[in-house]
């Protein structure tokens, strides 16, 4: 079975400072991992995905995430936060041998202060 833990329900950073959103997963099979972003009153948008290629994955809007198997982590980072980054972020795991169903983490709300 798969599960996802997002360690912070809310993260607050100042504009221009680095962003770190933490995600740990468990999976019985080799996982695919995703980060989605949801802006207020909008649908979910795919930020980036890891599917067993390079462990450092670059996504849209300057975000990236590193898959660390030994730590079962897939933390999302960005060097410099922008006001438009304020949103809810979801870490998602899917076991590639398990089929098409994905398991979502509870989400982390990112606030960006001026």
């Amino acid at each position, binding site marked *: 079975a798969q599960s996802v833990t997002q360690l912070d329900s809310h993260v607050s950073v100042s504009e221009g400072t680095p962003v770190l959103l933490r995600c740990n997963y468990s999976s019985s099979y080799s996982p695919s991992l995703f980060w989605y972003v949801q802006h207020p009153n909008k649908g979910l948008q*795919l930020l980036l995905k890891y*599917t067993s290629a390079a462990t450092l994955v670059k996504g849209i809007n300057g975000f990236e995430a590193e898959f660390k198997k030994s730590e079962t982590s897939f933390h999302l980072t960005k060097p410099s936060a922008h006001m438009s980054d304020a949103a809810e972020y979801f870490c998602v795991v899917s076991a590639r041998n398990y089929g098409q169903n*994905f398991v979502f983490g509870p989400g982390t709300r990112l606030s960006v202060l001026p």
Partner: protein
Amino acid sequence: DVKVTQSSRYLVKRTGEKVFLECVQDMDHENMFWYRQDPGLGLRLIYFSYDVKMKEKGDIPEGYSVSREKKERFSLILESASTNQTSMYLCATNIRAGYTFGSGTRLTVV
């Protein structure tokens, strides 16, 4: 790009009403999903479908049913709406590269 359209952005229904939430995708994908999203709980899978007339229960199917008569359309049905079904409902389709979500339907049951 895949487009997933949910017919209503906001709905208000009374307790006991039968409610239909409609979802249409335009890319001939086989897999379609219904999730509900609640604060602090993330997204929870209600039902999914791998093909026409096929349906599988997700993690929280109680109180819901679904219909997939055509490949592009996946309907979520609340047989008798209750206040604890007040939530944001998200439809999605996917391939291995990831999901595409609709904009969501915010349902309030009063």
